[in-house]
């Protein structure tokens, strides 16, 4: 199973929403699709789901061109694009039945899907009265109810409260275990770091990075930690003298950000030394900023809006 963009281009008048995108994602993993507003993320996903037609190039899913053979290309794809609306007088059970019937799939998983997205209690209520968050949950249920091998998700946690966002991330993590390919756009870097295995980053319609989260971590990691002490630190210069520490900045008198060189081994040595020197450390937290570092470095203040 794979999703591939071959010189995929979408142009509106003189504006390129997407320019010669070449990207192939395959296997059972989750790929985060990142970029600022207007970078071309949603355009790409819409081209892969037959909502838009490419100006040139091809959007290919499992060997089928989406434009020429949409039924075959989308046969094993579940999609959530923007926040869709549904026919207002139908119920979630009926909405998911439509999807199953269109795809020729038994309806046995409908209730299970609704339970996963916490809409089971609402299964017989008309969707016209649902909130945006509930519609988003129902959209996710409709994307996964037929157990597709590929999921294309456009900012799946948009419009949700923090609890809902957490639940959706957990659902996506669970889906990964079922061996499916998830191609997901997001604005939220921590979300991508938490859920995804690989990241594709685009800006101004062009792909600027495609790599695994691990590699990005190695290449862009800021290697800094935030250390919290029981009592105020009087002289941070003493701490700066510890081996491998590059810089120390005070967040407050109890809390310092320590930048260091080296990997996890060095991080352990620094903590040990601090304790040996009598500092009363009450918390020691890694800042996983690698993706943010990469994002800032590659895109920076290049805002498309």
């Amino acid at each position, binding site marked *: 199973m794979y999703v591939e963009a071959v010189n995929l281009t979408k142009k509106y008048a003189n504006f390129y929403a997407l320019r010669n995108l070449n990207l192939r994602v395959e296997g059972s993993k989750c790929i985060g699709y990142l970029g600022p507003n207007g970078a071309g993320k949603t355009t790409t996903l819409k081209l892969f*789901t037959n909502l838009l037609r490419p100006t040139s190039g091809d959007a290919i899913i499992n060997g089928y061109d989406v434009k020429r053979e949409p039924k075959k290309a989308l046969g094993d794809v579940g999609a959530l694009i923007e926040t869709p609306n549904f026919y207002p007088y139908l119920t979630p059970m009926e909405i998911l039945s439509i999807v199953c019937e269109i795809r020729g799939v038994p309806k046995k998983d409908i209730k299970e899907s609704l339970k996963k997205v916490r809409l089971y209690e609402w299964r017989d209520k008309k969707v016209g009265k649902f909130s945006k968050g509930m519609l988003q949950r129902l*959209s996710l249920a409709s994307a996964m109810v037929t157990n597709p091998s590929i999921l294309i998700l456009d900012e799946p946690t948009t419009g949700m409260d923090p609890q809902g966002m957490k639940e959706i991330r957990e659902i996506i993590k669970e889906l990964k275990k079922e061996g499916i390919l998830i191609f997901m756009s997001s604005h939220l870097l921590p979300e991508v770091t938490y859920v995804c295995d690989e990241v594709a980053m685009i800006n101004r319609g062009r792909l600027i990075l495609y790599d695994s989260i691990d590699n990005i971590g190695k290449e862009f990691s800021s290697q800094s930690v935030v250390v919290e002490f029981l009592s105020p630190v009087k002289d941070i210069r003493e701490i700066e003298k510890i081996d491998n520490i590059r810089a120390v900045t005070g967040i407050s008198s109890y809390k310092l950000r320590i930048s260091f060189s080296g990997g996890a081994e060095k991080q352990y040595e620094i903590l040990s030394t601090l304790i040996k020197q009598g500092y009363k450390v009450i918390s020691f937290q890694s800042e996983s900023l690698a993706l943010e570092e990469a994002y800032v470095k590659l895109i920076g203040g290049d805002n498309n809006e």
Partner: protein
Amino acid sequence: MNEKSSASQMFTISKYWFLNYLRSKRLYVLLAITVVISLIFLVVIWKFVNAEYLTSNEYIENWAMFVAFLVTLAALFFGGDAISSEYGKKTGYFLFPNPIKRWSIFWGKFFASLLASLIALLLYWGIALGDTYMVKGSVGIEAYYSLGLSLLYLVTILAFTYMFSSFFRNAAVSITIVAILYFFVFGIVNSIAMFTGVEPWFSITYAASVIENILKNPYPPHIQQLHGNGMSITVFNAPLYMGIGIMIGYFLVSAVIGTLVITYRELK
């Protein structure tokens, strides 16, 4: 996964779109309007029309006069927002990414709208035919021809409305434009034709006159010149086959354009 046939997917869309109509009470509202108008007609015809001097066809012609209006109302009720809502209300984001051809969605919805409109139209004709039979003791074959022509008109008007619905994102805009066309523009075109002497063969409401004219004996002449007060007007009556031809033409053109628009229109 088994790939479902487009016909089967079309049936699925029809089924749930019709269910949406039933729940939205649109169908019941149109049926209520139909019943109220029928009751008014019953009272007015019984009170003011002297049925004794009318043939069965002349009697039911009173009923047939309203058919074109009812058909138009049904088309606006069920077709005005059918396709535009997929774009304007974003329901397309749910349906379009599925492995389904867009034309299956178009025609699935069309058949649901047709079924809903047919229920209202057949109720009206049922009352009209029943009343005619009760009052005149028989119903002429021409009444059934008129019914058949009104069904053809319904199919045509619905396809025409669907075509307009596929042009716009905003349901209110598509409904308003189609209503203005039916209730004003075509009427004005027909009136202009009377004064200019140019036959309005391109007007769908001109074609619809065959629904009433089929009940007249003899069938009215195609072209009639009337003179008086220093002016002359030309009255056109679409011959039966011309009326049918215009309706079929409208249907074909609307169906092809509507299907092409939904197939190629993007959901931006």
